[in-house]
């Protein structure tokens, strides 16, 4: 009843096996007194199969799933042999049958005890130790009974069916002892199993607590890391804000002074050498400005992915500004072709100007000296936007497929004598990615073309 109650409450597989074992035991004990042979003769028999099943089911209740799976075939085979033996064995040598049966019971109980005891002592729970002791006691009892059956009852054939007679005091003591032992074994194993089960449940709870504690620790570590990352991002934003304004502003002023100086020189003051020096200085400033802009964009790409904004832009105006970014002398080499009507695209004007500036800088740097760089702007209905292409004459057959150009720090085969960080084309490709667009390149008949595809 207790097993059935526990089974209803917890519903575990182990409890199911144990309850089945109790049912077998109950049926076996009930059948113990069910064969009266006459007014003075009672045949006390116990169904050996039920006893075997009682012990077997108890073993299955404590074994883990893998063991059950592994031994399933063997146990079924042994059961079959056991039943066959009992059916075929002749009744006139019942003591042998009794001896073999009780030996089987003893062996199975011993096997169950050994299964529990193979676990190291420090890892065994109280319930497991109790069950092991219970199985050992059961094994010993049945072993003794087997010995008695083989040795003692071979001489006294009182257990043959044919000549059962009224039991004398000695037989009564044997029966009472057997019954008492059975009850003790059943009860103790029951208690042991309950303790075993409760300790497993408690161990499960403890494991859950340990897992929960570990997860809590991991969560706190993740929160600390997130807080650190947030602080790093804040510091980085502050750094970029300072560089963007506090560094670029003096550059702007220096550029303004140089521009003023150049104008004064072009109006007739100063020597050619001085004018040349001013041009060179302006060229260096242009290079510093481009490098700084590229570095600021490269360092803020992650932030821009989350905060990307766009507006309607005039690509012709942006191309003109980008051309002037390259310096007065270089700007003379840049021709801009527009579609002849006002065209708007949706873009971040600052980033797009930087992208165009990088392409123009590339074209001027790697193209043939004193050749024109052409910017062609046209509508692209297929992408609901526009395509801006930069063409220049150059010989760069090694770059013909263009596949490695847009990787950071990648320099061209003609780049040995020129300065550069290898960041320009990478910045262009990242800016296009932010715009859900793309940049591609081709080299045909001595002309290199880069095209920006800007969807709406």
């Amino acid at each position, binding site marked *: 009843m207790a097993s059935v109650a526990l089974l209803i409450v917890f519903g575990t597989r182990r409890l199911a096996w144990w309850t089945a074992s109790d049912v077998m035991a109950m049926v076996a004990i009930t059948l113990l007194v069910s064969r009266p042979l006459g007014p003075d003769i009672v045949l006390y028999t116990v169904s050996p199969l039920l006893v075997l099943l009682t012990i077997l089911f108890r073993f299955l209740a404590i074994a883990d799933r893998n063991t059950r799976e592994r031994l399933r075939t063997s146990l079924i085979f042994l059961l079959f042999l056991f039943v066959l033996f009992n059916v075929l064995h002749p009744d006139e040598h019942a003591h042998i049958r009794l001896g073999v049966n009780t030996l089987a019971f003893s062996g199975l109980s011993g096997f169950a005890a050994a299964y529990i005891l193979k676990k190291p002592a420090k890892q065994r729970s109280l319930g497991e130790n109790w069950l092991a002791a219970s199985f050992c006691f059961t094994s010993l009892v049945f072993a003794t009974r087997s010995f008695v059956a083989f040795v003692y009852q071979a001489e006294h054939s009182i257990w043959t069916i044919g000549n059962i007679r009224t039991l004398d005091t000695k037989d009564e003591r044997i029966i009472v002892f057997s019954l008492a032992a059975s009850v003790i074994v059943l009860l103790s194993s029951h208690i042991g199993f309950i303790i075993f089960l409760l300790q497993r449940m408690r161990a499960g709870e403890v494991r859950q607590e340990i897992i929960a504690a570990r997860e809590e620790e991991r969560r706190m570590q993740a929160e600390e890391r997130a807080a650190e990352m947030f602080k790093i991002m804040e510091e980085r934003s502050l750094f970029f804000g300072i560089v963007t304004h506090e560094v670029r502003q003096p550059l702007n002023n220096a550029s303004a002074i140089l521009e003023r100086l150049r104008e004064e020189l072009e109006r007739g003051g100063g020597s050619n050498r001085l004018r040349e020096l001013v041009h060179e200085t302006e060229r260096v400033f242009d290079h510093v400005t481009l490098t700084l802009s590229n570095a*600021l964009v490269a360092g803020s790409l992650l932030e821009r992915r989350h905060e990307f904004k766009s507006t309607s832009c005039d690509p012709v105006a942006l191309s003109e500004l980008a051309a002037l970014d390259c310096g007065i002398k270089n700007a003379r080499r840049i021709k801009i072709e527009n579609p002849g009507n006002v065209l708007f695209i949706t873009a971040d004007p600052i980033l797009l100007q930087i992208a165009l500036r990088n392409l123009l800088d590339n074209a001027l740097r790697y193209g043939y000296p004193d050749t024109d760089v052409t910017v062609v702007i046209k509508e692209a209905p297929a992408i*609901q936007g526009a395509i801006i292409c930069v063409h220049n004459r150059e010989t760069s057959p090694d770059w013909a497929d263009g596949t490695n150009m847009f990787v950071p720090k990648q320099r061209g085969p003609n780049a040995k004598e020129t300065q550069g960080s290898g960041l320009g084309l990478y910045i262009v490709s990242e800016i296009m990615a932010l715009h859900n667009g793309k940049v591609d390149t081709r080299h045909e008949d001595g002309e290199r073309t880069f095209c920006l595809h800007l969807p709406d």
Partner: protein
Amino acid sequence: MIVILTTPVRKEFRVLDQVLGTRICIIDDDDEFGRYLQQFFEARGARVTLYQAGDAFLSAADALAYDFYLVDLTLPGADGVDLVLFIRAQTEAVIIVISGRMGPDAFNAALVAGADMFINKPVRFDQVAQAMAAVKRRLGTGGGGAVRWELSFDERILRSNKGEAVELTATESHLLAALIEAGEAGCDRMTLRNIAASPDADERAIDAAVFRMRKKIEKATGRPAPIKTRHGLGYHVVPNIGLR
């Protein structure tokens, strides 16, 4: 027809023609940059006034008497965006913001406030002149600043408060009317397909129809069309458009 523009240097003479006699207001707290930019335009015949703080500009009697405003965003006193709002509310002059800030918030705030263009420092003087020329080229005779649109559904004409008008086809006026009525929520392509009475048409047909309409508006007015794409969803219109 493809028009091949002249090089920026040769364009400078064009700019000279455009700035000659024009009145330019520079609002920038950077003394060196402001002064040299002023000298650059004065050397080309423009009349230039430099203010180094927003408050000084606002208290000037002729603050709204200029053709071009070149405004820095980072100013002592009044914020640059507030100045743009103030100027735009009262004039149709061209406003160009010149700022060292690179973040998307900078240009977005300036353009939403009514600036016609945003250029990033460090900047050359001829780039500033180029930007002024580009805006003037785009706007033509119309002034700068915020545009209000109105669709006359019965006449199938889209008008701006700058005097421009665009004739639309029946399908285009239906599509635009649906977008105006949907407002900020916009319309998805399936809805537009049904409105265009082309339920069997695929999405590309709707995209092509909207694209054609936008280009028609831009070519006719020199301004961005009041229709925007909402990625993955469809289209919506800008807030300053109405239906009659």
